[in-house]
């Protein structure tokens, strides 16, 4: 008999949602000692599956029919108080965002100890000993120090280790991981995945692993269930689903996962359109009492973008790649070095700089003003620069057609668009100024993999048609391989390696580049 069996589970969404049911007759089972990956795009119902097991659904979401059997117990019909006792002791959960999942005002040791204080009768010193052992088990450096530390003193990966220690504290039979590595850097992600794998094998825990990333699936899954619109469309062993998918949707998703192999190199014009030389930027804390020390974000960075090509800047969080992007568009001042666009220094005046360089932002939900029509937001730049309103709107309509949107969408508000459409609007807004250089700061990292592929395709097409020069910031090496002609790898404010994408990805010379490439999930099964 399975450890967890979800039988014909139908979960209703509140009235007015985009569909009636979050889950429609979902059946899944997990054996002891097995990792089941539930994979799907946003809105597929994969997270609702996890929260329904734990009864942590958003208000208004409720189970309509079906059972959630943990051994002999039906979790779906259990009274709240009985379920509360099961949480943490028999089922535990690790959340996506390690930054917000820990209480910032409580020391890590106290939060960890709460698990035993709540669920067991252990004495204080026994709890302290167990807390220490738990942190040792998740391989935190300096576990004694970590017990006394507050969450903000730990890195994201360390916090996620603490969350895993907390989840496993009472030796639950089932561990639910809801996108536990999505917020982490790729090398940290690889470490956390290994950790979960090891702990799970050592203890025989069953793991329900929710993810959107097929690379992660390939790394960790024993079995895979693919969800679409609240329905499980395909399930089977990891090997079978990833290499011989049956359902059309699975095939489409897998085809959208970008490969790591760069396309054959193109002819690149020798003319440099953006030259950044020896750029330095230090963040100095403001205020009279400078308690924090100054952080050096860019430590002499030099890169060159050639006309009509794409230069990828890759690196992990804290490498300085976003700072570089913000300096290049004039959003941030810099301390030393030079930025030259088309031969002359980047002007300080906003108006003048706007015609030279434009930016596509990361978060399609935050980068459009929710209270203004999208057409106005696209046309406002040219209008401020002196273009007549009617002409600016006509140009905006042309741009909308160019990026694959209906020109009639100009008069709508941002909330009427999907994430991918919003990113298209963001691209249209940047192109409206007819810039020499387009800086794209993680433009696809907030998008589902199939939408990601479409937006990348759009950027490639626009580059071919308009001869765009793109400075492309990304943490995702697969995405970089799709679009970039050249690439610069950044670490701690320095470019450690640069060259054509084929050369860097196939023959990385720097140890950091090698470790980044090695950490890309799913290389073995999905292909490099």
């Amino acid at each position, binding site marked *: 008999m399975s450890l967890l069996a979800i039988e014909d589970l139908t979960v209703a969404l509140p009235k007015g949602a985009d569909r009636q049911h979050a889950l429609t007759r979902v059946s899944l089972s997990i054996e002891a000692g097995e990792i089941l990956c539930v994979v799907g795009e946003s809105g597929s119902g994969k997270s609702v599956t996890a929260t329904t097991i734990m009864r942590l659904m958003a208000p*208004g979401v409720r189970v309509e029919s079906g059972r959630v059997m943990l051994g002999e117990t039906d979790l779906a019909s259990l009274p709240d108080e009985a379920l509360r006792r099961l949480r943490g002791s028999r089922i535990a959960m690790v959340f996506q965002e390690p930054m917000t999942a820990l209480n910032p005002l409580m020391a890590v040791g106290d939060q960890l100890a709460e698990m035993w204080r709540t669920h067991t009768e252990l004495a204080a010193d026994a709890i302290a000993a167990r807390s220490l052992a738990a942190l040792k088990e998740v391989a935190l450096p300096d576990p004694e120090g970590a017990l006394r530390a507050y969450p903000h003193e730990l890195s994201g990966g360390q916090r996620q280790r603490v969350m895993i220690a907390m989840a496993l504290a009472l030796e639950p039979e089932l561990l639910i991981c809801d996108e536990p590595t999505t917020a982490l850097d790729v090398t940290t992600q690889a470490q956390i995945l290994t950790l979960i794998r090891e702990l799970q094998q050592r203890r025989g825990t069953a793991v329900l692993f929710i993810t959107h990333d097929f690379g992660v699936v390939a790394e960790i899954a024993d079995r895979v269930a693919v969800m679409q619109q609240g329905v499980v469309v395909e399930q089977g062993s990891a090997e079978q689903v990833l290499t011989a998918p049956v359902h059309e949707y699975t095939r489409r998703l897998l085809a959208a996962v970008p490969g790591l192999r760069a396309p054959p190199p193109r002819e690149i014009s020798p003319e440099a359109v953006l030259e950044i030389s020896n750029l330095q930027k230090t963040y100095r804390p403001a205020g009279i009492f400078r308690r924090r020390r100054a952080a050096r974000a860019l430590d002499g960075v030099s890169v060159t973008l050639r006309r009509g090509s794409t230069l990828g800047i890759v690196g992990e969080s804290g490498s300085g790649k976003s700072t570089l992007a913000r300096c290049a568009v004039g959003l941030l001042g810099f301390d030393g070095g030079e930025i030259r666009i088309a031969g002359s220094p980047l002007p300080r005046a*906003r108006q003048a*700089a706007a015609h030279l360089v*434009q930016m596509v932002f990361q978060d399609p939900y*935050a*980068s*459009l003003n929710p209270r*203004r029509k999208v057409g106005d*937001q696209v046309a406002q*730049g040219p209008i401020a620069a002196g273009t007549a309103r009617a002409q600016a709107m006509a140009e905006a309509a042309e741009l909308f057609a160019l990026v694959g949107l209906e020109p009639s969408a100009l008069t709508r508000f941002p909330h009427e668009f999907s994430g991918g459409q919003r990113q298209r609007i963001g691209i249209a807004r940047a192109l409206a100024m007819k810039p020499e250089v387009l800086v794209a700061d993680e433009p696809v990292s907030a998008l589902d993999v199939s939408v990601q592929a479409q937006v990348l395709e759009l950027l490639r097409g626009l580059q071919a048609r308009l001869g765009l020069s793109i400075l492309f910031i990304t943490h995702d090496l697969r995405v970089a391989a799709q679009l970039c002609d050249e690439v610069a790898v950044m670490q701690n404010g320095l470019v450690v390696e640069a060259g054509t994408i084929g050369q860097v990805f196939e023959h990385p010379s720097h140890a950091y580049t090698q470790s980044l490439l090695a950490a890309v999930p799913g290389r073995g099964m999905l292909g490099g």
Partner: protein
Amino acid sequence: MRRALAAYARNPAALLGAVLVLMVLGMGLAAPLLFPQDPLGLAGRPLQWPGANPRFPLGTDPSGRDIMAQLFHGARVSLLIGFVATLVASAIGIAIGAVAGFYGGWVDTLLMRVTEAFQTLPNFLLLLVLVAVFGSHINTVTIAIGLVSWPPVARLTRAEFLTLRTREFVSAARVQGLGDIHLMLREVLPNALPPVIVYASVVMAVAILLESALAFLQLSDPNVPSWGNLIGLGRNVLRVEWYVSAIPGVAILLTILGVSLMGQGLNDALNPRITGK
């Protein structure tokens, strides 16, 4: 917007608030039709109890004026004072808060220290000083009330601007080459406004109370029939003819209750996280 209106209409307390405010508004609008004579003119024998004389359903005050007429005309005065004073306070508060929050740094430090200087003075004392210096004409009183009520609006606006100015859509407009005025007025302000609108209802309620308190001390304009003046008149006969003060007191209570409920309702309706439930 339509979603916010629907959310508001589902909230019974908020609807009650709207009904109360509309009633007071209706009283103010109907006053010149129902009571065309000067409400401050002599109407009959002083201090008649409510119901004693069918001509004066709510009785007469110590000067022999019709309380009902004063109540209706007073609704206009109280609402007008509340509205104009709120406008004055919001205009000053939003301007100062927007500049402080948008620019940050020393501009913020300077403007916030000025704001704190105003906040450390009890606003009623400051109001007394202003009225003592500039006189107690109804216009002066109204503007003075606005002048003492802006600091919380400024702080609230500043807090909103501080978080909104770092949002990507503001950066995007900046990269498009748009000026600071555009960024503040078109990008940030519309997003910062909902909590400020909600707080404006508090300012309005307090403004009405402040005027009543001034009038009770007989420092407000004696030539307008405000509710506060009526309460002030009743002060000397409070132990026997208590209705003179009590009737306008109840009117003030209901108005402020209405305005506050409306503010709370707006808060719930404009806050998407609460609307979802």
